[in-house]
């Protein structure tokens, strides 16, 4: 992206922020909804942790690292790439056809459609949870471990974005495919926040190879906490989770480009 393009992105983002602040109460509620949504994940995880100690052979402080990574990755995804989540609606309203006529990449226009105010709430809660998880952690946080944690968060963000981009690609062809993005978010929130080795092997395999949500936070957390050899997949594959996130996102963007080339509009 050129410097001029970056400047345009920044200016549109500032305008979007001003626009979202037009209705102040809605703006504040939007922040609240981001926070509350994340709190629901914490509530679920806390309830399970308090009732079922030693979940999957992990102690509580180790388990806490999983939702912390996932939520921080999710918050960043919502902030930077989250508008892809609502692409089905934009297709149904014919907005993609308008984007195609403008001298800016369609994907960028989708991302600049509005400012995701809820990401402020998402990130606030996620940062708090991460601070709490690191504070309780018994691990020695060396430079290498911290670097891997940062890479895990970025990789998780990209992997989640890749999954939603893939759904968006399907929605370009079948607008009703947008239905799946809601479920995907629900699955990530519910099953992405604790050790998947509590599940039967077949179900864990489904969430690893079928829908790769285990790579978002579970495997990176396992590597960080020393459980990397007990995940049911080769250690190197678990350790490569951040890299897989990058590759998945690049692949999803290629898929997006291909799908957009085939796009014929809602009316054919």
């Amino acid at each position, binding site marked *: 992206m050129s410097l001029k393009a970056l400047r345009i992105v920044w200016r549109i983002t500032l305008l979007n922020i001003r626009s979202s602040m037009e209705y102040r109460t809605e703006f504040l509620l939007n922040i609240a909804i981001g926070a509350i949504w994340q709190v629901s994940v914490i509530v679920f995880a806390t309830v399970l942790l308090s*009732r079922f100690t030693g979940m999957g052979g992990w102690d509580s402080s180790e388990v806490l690292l999983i939702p912390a990574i996932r939520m921080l990755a999710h918050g960043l995804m919502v902030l930077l790439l989250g508008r892809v989540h609502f692409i089905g609606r934009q297709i149904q309203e014919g907005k993609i056809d308008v984007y195609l006529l403008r001298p800016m990449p369609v994907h960028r226009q989708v991302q600049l459609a509005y400012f995701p105010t809820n990401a402020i709430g998402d990130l606030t809660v996620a940062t708090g949870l991460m601070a709490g998880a690191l504070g309780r952690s018994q691990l020695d946080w060396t430079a290498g471990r911290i670097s891997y944690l940062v890479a895990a968060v970025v990789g998780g963000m990209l992997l989640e974005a890749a999954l939603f981009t893939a759904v968006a690609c399907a929605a370009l062809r079948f607008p*009703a495919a947008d239905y799946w993005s809601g479920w995907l978010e629900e699955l990530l929130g519910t099953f992405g926040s604790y050790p998947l080795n509590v599940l039967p092997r077949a179900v864990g395999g489904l969430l690893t190879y079928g829908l790769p949500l285990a790579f978002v936070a579970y495997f990176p957390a396992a590597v960080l906490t020393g459980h990397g050899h007990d995940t049911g997949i080769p250690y190197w594959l678990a350790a490569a989770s951040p890299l897989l996130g990058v590759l998945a996102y690049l692949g999803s963007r290629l898929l997006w480009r291909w799908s957009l080339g085939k796009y014929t509009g809602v009316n054919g």
Partner: protein
Amino acid sequence: MATVPAWRAARVTPLGELHAPPRMTAVLLRLTVQVVLVASLWHGLYSRTGSTAGLDEGQAVTYAVLAVLASRIRQLDQYTGRDSVIQHMHYGTIVYWYLRPLPPQRYYALRAFGEQLYGFAWALAGYTVCLAAGVVDPPESAAVAGVFAVSLLLGQLVLYYVMLILDQLCFFTIRNNSAMLILIFAQNLLSGVYAPLWFFPDWFIRLSGFLPFQATLSVPLSIYIGRIGLADAAAQLAVQAGWVVVLALFTRWVWRQAARRVISQGG
């Protein structure tokens, strides 16, 4: 009111679903996967625990799976059909609800009835399959099943009124997506959709007792699994019925207030 027009209004959303086989397939797949995942999760969690919060493994799995099935009862996608109240308010088409020979509150009730009936068919089919497959336990006795059925009906009425209040909110606020999401979240959390309320701290259970949400799902499911005994069920049914009356009166009053805010385009 004639029965035929009422039936026609009630079947609008279910018909929309029946004419979209890909969406029905998606619902079937989603429901199946969700049931398998939820059942696996609770079995896995209980693998090292005998009983917690007064629930054993069978009760917890049954509760969680029934909660997944029950959540299908009112989960139709009105948004795609552009017939949600918030969309009508946004596009100004809400005024047509007030120009028809059918009063808006009756139209809304009929639509909701059709949706809940359609969703119930899904839930019942899912329940039958789960029961046959041994995923959920049957009720302890015919009496428990009967009380559960009554409680479920009252719970659905409470749910209808809670959802109606969320929609009625659209008449009074220009932008209310976030408020709606917050209330839907509260409904899911406090009704026990995320996890049975029995797992939560005592103060949380006490707090939810003062709100209508637990009457929608937690009470009927707790009766089904035997966490609320038949001796205590009468009091719970009375609380549910009380909420139905209070919410019915409140929403009736809000409909009247809402009608005053609707103006035809151009003022």
